[in-house]
């Protein structure tokens, strides 16, 4: 079989166009993100319903030792969550803020992972493949938000009320928030969003201009954690 120069160039051009079209069409039809309405979140004192729901849904152990506990979503002080943005007269000062994995646009944890155990899905979720994790903890060093926890010990004895629908993790792997990808696949919102009594957590698709989260972000002032790092966090804080 022979192919003329002209035919070859034509075929190459068409192939390139097809690849480009697929990229444009396939890109960013979904970008999951979360917004935290700080004022609503603070309405109930010492509310930990989202944390408890997450803990229950994902078999997160309750390890009492400092530095050994596993955190997917937790409360941190405003000063820790937004360093450099506190001032003595801020209404947010000293207030706790709900923090979780930001599911970054440019996740540094993904870049440093030597085994590609952590990876960014096409829908924007930064996911973990525990099968591949070798426990090197590079990702923990890379994450500027402290969103990753290492299993220093077998977590099973510390799981109070195990959820049989979700696997546990094992000693020696790093774990993090998955934005409830297993619930999203079933058409349900993340467990923390569902559990919030004040509806302070708003979940949605940033690529859809009519989604609840886009409308909220368009209407209200908001901020992200450490935007200067260029990670492009997918968790927004309504102020």
């Amino acid at each position, binding site marked *: 079989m022979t192919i003329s120069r002209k035919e070859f160039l034509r075929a190459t051009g068409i192939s390139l166009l097809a690849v480009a079209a697929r990229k444009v069409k396939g890109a960013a039809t979904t970008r999951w993100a979360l917004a935290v309405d700080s004022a609503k979140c603070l309405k109930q004192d*010492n509310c930990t319903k989202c944390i408890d729901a997450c803990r229950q849904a994902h078999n997160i152990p*309750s390890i009492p030792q400092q530095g050994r506990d596993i955190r997917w979503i937790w409360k941190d002080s405003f000063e820790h969550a937004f360093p450099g943005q506190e001032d003595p007269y801020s209404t947010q000062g000293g*207030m706790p803020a709900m923090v979780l994995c930001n599911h970054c646009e440019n996740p540094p944890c993904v870049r440093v992972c030597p085994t590609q155990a952590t990876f960014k899905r096409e829908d924007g979720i930064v996911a973990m*493949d525990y*099968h591949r994790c070798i426990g090197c903890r590079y990702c923990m060093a890379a994450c500027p938000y402290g969103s990753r926890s290492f299993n220093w010990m077998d977590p099973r*004895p510390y799981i109070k009320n195990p959820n049989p629908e979700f696997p546990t993790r094992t000693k020696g792997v790093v774990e993090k928030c998955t934005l409830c990808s297993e619930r999203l696949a079933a058409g349900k919102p993340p467990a923390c969003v569902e559990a919030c009594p004040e509806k302070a957590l708003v979940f949605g698709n940033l690529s859809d201009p009519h989604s609840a989260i886009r409308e909220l972000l368009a209407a209200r002032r908001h901020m992200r954690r450490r935007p200067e790092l260029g990670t492009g966090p997918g968790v927004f804080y309504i102020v």
Partner: protein
Amino acid sequence: MRDRGVIYTALVLFLGLLTFPVWHNLSAHVTAKGPDVKLPGAEKKCVAPVEYMRTSHMNLLIAWRDQVVREGEPMSGKSLTPTCLEKCHGSKADFCDRCHNYAAVTPSCWNCHEDRKAGPGSERAGMSAGAAGTSARATIARSGR
């Protein structure tokens, strides 16, 4: 023929040594029989032919893992505990373990995936070891104001 005693003794010793594997196995009750796995009662057909599953089930599970975890396919029908164990094989102890023990392999699947019927944590240490209160960081009081 004065060496007859020595020769016969040596011969008996030699034959004894030669047949050592046979009588050692007999005394240790080792049989040529394979592992006695408990087959699923209701389901008669596996997801792949028996011969393939016997030799290559691990490859199938790894392919499922990659499809579900990395390629984002739905988990239904491609998961270790709900599909393999609960739909058909019933119990890890009666199926997986019997063959794995026979072959002296210890796959790490069950460090994370669970045999729900045997109860969580059954694979490893008991549940009562260290269940404790909520994490200290989970309750940062609104003390700053």
